[in-house]
């Protein structure tokens, strides 16, 4: 029996603000899971802290709502202990690029086969609108007492140099496009990163839905708004590393494209490189039956509770006389 979109929804009351970009991301995740027909029990959504941290509670898969900034190590631990699980980590920009940025960099070095989605609205919502690491320098949202004094981080470029092997950006109100990105990220063999731009209707009065739609930027000829988003795939951009000798060139174009901001903001897949061995593959090089017999599936005791592990050889080495 095919799984329906409703099979991925819970009846937990959603208390995000009306108009919050999180809704689009939540819908896109649920739609992607339904499209992929991933059994809910095989899927675990991990989240950090903040508004985005509540996401797993609205999705009817296993849901692990972790600590501020620590979603990636939690998620990697589960995936590596049981590589059969489909693991998706979600978190806010403050969570992943502020308090947890060290884990983002280290996760990149491992390239564990899973997906990480950052809900990027440039503010800390749940603590009432402080500047997040993606807020541009000098911006003063209505919730800030003074303009933002820090420069913003470029999440895509950061994830690139950290070693993520799939990089994409979506927009929370282009749900179908985002859903396709999520499906590709899940299918990607390695660590996938999706930076999702989203308005915070309550605290970010600069990067609003209207701003993204370009309502302030009317084409004088057509008299219509020029949306700020454009799709990379519609420009002939190809982020895929087809052979390892293309890596430098492909990485350079990611830096260039991810720096675009203002009136032209690219979304789509920036980069995909499956020439880097995943962490699972690196473990297999040492533990050949890791995928068939990962930690979570190993039997450790017999029916009477006696250990099945023999350390006889190691003890023989310690034995005074053999």
């Amino acid at each position, binding site marked *: 029996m095919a799984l329906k979109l409703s099979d991925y929804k819970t009846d937990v009351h959603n208390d995000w603000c009306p108009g919050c970009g999180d809704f689009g991301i939540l819908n896109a995740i649920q739609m992607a899971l339904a499209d992929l027909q991933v059994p809910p029990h095989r899927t675990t959504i991990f989240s950090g802290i903040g508004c985005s941290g509540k996401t797993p*509670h609205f999705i009817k898969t296993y*849901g692990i709502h972790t600590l501020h900034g620590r979603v990636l190590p939690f998620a990697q*631990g589960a995936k590596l202990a049981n590589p059969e699980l489909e693991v998706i980590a979600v978190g806010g920009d403050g969570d992943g690029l502020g308090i947890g940025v060290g*884990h983002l960099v*280290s996760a990149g070095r491992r390239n564990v086969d899973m997906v990480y989605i950052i809900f990027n609205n440039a503010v800390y919502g749940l603590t009432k609108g402080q500047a997040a690491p993606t807020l541009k320098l000098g911006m003063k949202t209505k919730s800030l007492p003074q303009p933002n004094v820090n420069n913003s981080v470029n999440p895509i470029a950061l994830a690139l140099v950290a070693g993520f092997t799939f990089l994409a950006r979506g927009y929370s109100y282009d749900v179908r496009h985002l859903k396709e990105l999520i499906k590709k990220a899940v299918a990607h063999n390695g660590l996938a990163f999706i930076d999702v731009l989203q308005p915070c209707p309550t605290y970010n009065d600069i990067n609003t839905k209207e701003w993204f739609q370009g309502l302030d930027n009317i084409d004088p000829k057509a008299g219509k708004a020029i949306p700020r988003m454009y799709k990379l795939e519609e420009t002939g951009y190809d982020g895929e590393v087809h052979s390892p000798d293309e890596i430098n060139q492909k990485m350079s174009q990611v830096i260039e494209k991810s720096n675009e901001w203002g009136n032209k903001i690219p979304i789509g897949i920036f980069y995909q490189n499956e020439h880097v061995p995943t962490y699972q593959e690196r473990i297999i090089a040492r533990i050949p039956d890791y995928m068939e017999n*990962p930690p979570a599936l190993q039997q*450790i005791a017999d029916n009477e509770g*006696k250990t099945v*592990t023999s350390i006889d050889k190691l*003890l023989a080495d310690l034995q005074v006389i053999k």
Partner: protein
Amino acid sequence: MHACASALTAVRRIHANAASMMLRRAADNSSKALKEGHAKESKLEKTIMNSLSWVIGGAQGSGVDSAANIFSRACAIGGLHLFGKREYYSNIKGEHSYFTVRISDRPVHSHVDEISMLVSFDAETIFRHFEEVTASGAIIYDSDIVNTLLDEVPTVDDPAVARIKKVLQKAGLGFTVQDALEHAKRRGVILFPMPFFQLLKEFAQEANDPALSRLTRMVNVMALSASMAIMDFDSEVLARAIQFIFRTKKKVADLNVQACVHTYNYAKAKFAGSNFSYRLKIKPPQPDMIIVQGNQSSALGKMVAGCRFQTYYPITPASDDSEFLEANEILDLYDSGKKGSTVVIQTEDEIAALTMAIGSALTGVRTATATSGPGFSLMAEALGWAGMNEVPVVISLYQRTGPSTGLPTRHEQGDLNFAINAGHGEFPRIVFASGDIEESFYDTMKVFNFADRYQMPVIHMLDKAMANSLITCKNFNVKKIAIDRGLRVKQITEKDKGVADNYLRFKLSNNPISPMVVLGTKNAIFWNSGDEHTEEGHITEDPEIRVQMMDKRMTKLDVAIKEIPDEDKAVAYGSGDTVIISWGSTKGAILDAMDILAVEGMRVKYIQVRLMHPFPSELVKSMLKDAKTVIDIEMNYTGQLGSLVRQHTGLEANYHIVKYNGRPMSLNEVYNGVKRIIRGDAPRRQVLKSGA
């Protein structure tokens, strides 16, 4: 008569080494048996058989460890018991490290302050330890370095230089190695000069390979071999030990054996007829004995316990645990052609170490992380998450000297309060402390059982002293402790489900422990949250559910304290109304000191607390019931166990023996400290200070 003879034998056994010197020096030597023993057994003064404290020192990276391991192995093959401990600086190469090995016919559990034989091949070892060599002891040294001045050894730090100069000056001596040796000689220490460089040259000629003369790295084995020759140790057994230690490098092994034989013969001939009274005589070894280090025992326990996932961030002295697991990541299984395996992950920090471990534990894997104080500090928040979400996870906490970076390679038991209280808010955890290396193997299996059975984080307290000690003991019995995974549901039936088809992971019932299911289980969707949560695991701020969930989590501790057997809570050794209360690796020195006190007619009881949290209040209270004098012995400043005992039983220790100079307690210190208390001339708080 017979009883007297056996008492004397006991005295000799216990005292024959440095401990007897210590006792003789004691102001009040009231032991009649002891005095008689020395009078009657004047031979004892001449030959002290199989009982000594042997120390080898040298610059870090110069082979001190290998030499000590060879020595220990050789003695163990020769049927002797030993306790070894390693002291080293937070440094890679050049600073002074030393290895103390105490040898006996009987099991030994601690080190003594005195050195019977000091084996050196550099100047610093002499300067650092010459005062500790006992009156009839010996120093083996490189005769080429006797003119080295104290000020010429850059690694002896200023405070040590000042102390050493003061001692030499007081004796009217100068500041060379020769002066330090002279100082020892005046006290009766026997000196054994070894021309190591000359010997190397001769050895190279003998082997017809001039390149060998440059192999100064073999000096460690040469110095060791000289010490063995002087003590008449069987050279064949020594060669076997060398072969064993270098078993993966046959060429190196053979070369070292040759150098050993060459030096051994030289020393034997040159020092024949010396007055040195200590001898090591091999015996048939007892069957099924192992020689094991404290940084291996818990890791071995983890393998047997079924720990299949361990995370860590490098930190002294905990990393060895993880590295041992990783080096042996493929596991043999009984009755199966298949192999098991442990995934060991080096994380970016200790926050990731614990959070990743929790992620793994949620999939049903027995998971651990190993760390030390600074790392554990970073784990505090995640610890609370594990408590909140009832995740079974084990933290091996190898304590070292704090606070902050402290003395990063030295010992302390300063983290007890922190282990019990780390994290904000209130949540259940178990804190369990091992007292020695052998215990730590079995305890490791127990802590995983506790974690699974009570679904909470368990902090297994270990320490630097244990991690860097070496013992001989009975081979580990891997089937002794059964694996208990607690309440777990593997398959979900309709009745297991709760509202809206979801699994009630935190089901409220008469039993505060809800059956655990793991991520990936069919029909068992649940949620976890660091927020207060409902039975399904969804966020709630409902005041009634809050109370129910707090009660559920916290009362698991009541179940634990009810179920955990007494022998895992606190153990009593000996009897008497003078009662020592202690925890962790002070155990060895206390037990050994009790033996000597008993011979002198001082009966002492020792309570080793093992379950530190939840505190076994009733049991400890009843154990202390008849105590007239309670002595709290701990390796920390404030007497953390003493405070716990007061907090939970209302009973206050009358005396505290504490130590916080980074060096583990010696037998002498515990013996002297307790004896002073019994004699009635001790202050309420004694601070121990021995150790280089």
